């Protein structure tokens, strides 16, 4: 199994969610996050005083998938989240030893 984590722009969440649902991904966890990458945030101006805002709002989407589904899911997320502008985010996959469905106690792929 793999844990796919995507950090994307908040306004791309609906597209990412739809793309994952279209692939048959059964569930996901979405959290509000903040961070920055190469663009290092933006500048805001209040009564002439400039403030550098480094940590900008992001959305983190996490899904657990079977190994074979990892690549299609990564591709789908990248396609759905991409605007072509700086700050589009990152997606990565890490191996997961096991997963347990809390309600039934099922383990491994059965728990997804």
């Amino acid at each position: 199994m793999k844990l796919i984590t995507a950090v994307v722009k908040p306004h791309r969440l609906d597209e990412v969610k739809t793309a994952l649902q279209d692939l048959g991904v059964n569930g996901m966890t979405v959290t509000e996050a903040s961070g920055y990458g190469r663009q290092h945030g933006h500048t805001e101006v209040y009564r002439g005083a400039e403030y550098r805002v480094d940590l900008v709002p992001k959305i983190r989407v996490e899904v657990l998938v079977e190994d074979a589904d990892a690549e299609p899911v990564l591709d789908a997320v990248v396609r759905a989240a991409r605007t072509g502008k700086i700050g589009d985010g990152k997606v990565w996959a890490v191996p997961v030893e096991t997963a347990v469905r809390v309600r039934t106690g099922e383990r491994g792929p059965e728990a997804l």
Partner: protein
Amino acid sequence: MTPVTLASAGLDTGDTAWLLAATALVLLMTPGLALFYGGMVRTKSVLNMLMMSFVSIALVTVVWLVAGYSLAFGDDTFAGLIGGLGHVGMVGIGPDDLTGSVPTLLFTTFQLTFAILTAALISGAIADRMKFAAWLVFVPVWTLLVYVPVAHWVWGPGGWIVDALGALDFAGGLVVEITCGASGLALALVIGPRIGFKKDAMRPHNLPMVMLGAGLLWFGWLGFNGGSALGANGLAAASVLNTLVAGCTGLLGWLFVEQRRDGHPTTFGAASGVVAGLVAITPACGTVGVLGATVVGLVAGVVCSYAVAWKFRLDYDDSLDVVGVHFVGGVVGTLLIGLFATSAMTGGAEGLLYGGGAGQLARQAVAVLAVAAYTFLVTYGIGKVIDRTMGVRASEEEELTGLDQTVHAESAYDHGGLGHAAAQAPGQSVLRLQDRSTAP
């Protein structure tokens, strides 16, 4: 504002109706100011900011009715410097007594709303870090020692600025704007800068709240200036129109500077520009024509937008720019009377551009210097005395945690349940509360 005398002329219902409405309008300015200031501070101290305005309504009302009105608008007792104690506790004034053509009780209520707003305005200079208890002491003392004497000088019967000097201040450039601005500077110097000043980002936490507050201020300001005619007449109409146009050109002037200097016309700049224009037209709205008001607002918008940067260069932390907006705007408006005053409005005095020579400008300048110097020195003294007795500044821990939690035991916003314990009434468990709510 015309000098006030207890006149025997008959009551005018039109004048009275307008002044009743104007009084309500001006009272709304203080809650409006609370929102304006409240949006500008950080989340952790917004309630404290709101409270400083609201508590000013209560404190100043009591002080005003006990002694403030009598000392400001009672008969002069000493060389135009202070009124008498003949009406302490509003003794001797009943529903049938008149000031001009309106009941004296209404006139004093109208004036009271000015005193309330002026005290509340000062709180912007010491946002986020003043002991609430010290504020509760400062406001009544300041009202009696600063606001009341200056109000007497400028508007009271026999006041030296209006009578001996002949300077003009229709609705409060000297009495309201310059006093709150100079006091804000004095108190900011006594209390010192916020922790992290010039290092940490201290962004306004809610700009829609700032815009709502500015809107309410603008709305109330029509009563502030229009009501200062003390009658439902052409002068009130002219003042209302001048107030509207100066707010507009103040907004445009501030945005023009922002676009050129920073590359962005901001909502905060728009709200600030409106207030700068309104501040500047306050002394002048009953003495200049519409063209004069247009210029007064525009100049204030431009000048004040540059002035707010002073605190970073001169190293004083006037947190919400009481000096940059109210003091500077008040000075701009009071001095421009010397250029734009027209006899069509004043019935006599004329400014430089209307053929009146430089005399009025000089009188205005003397009044500005006198009021600013007196206000600064006395406020600084009050601040120092409070500081040495009860302390004027919240502790470092209170300031860092935020005054909302440490002083008021509240927080403005619920950011979710994480870290919050369940509700519990004193001496009762949550379970018992639930049991009681579901008991048959």
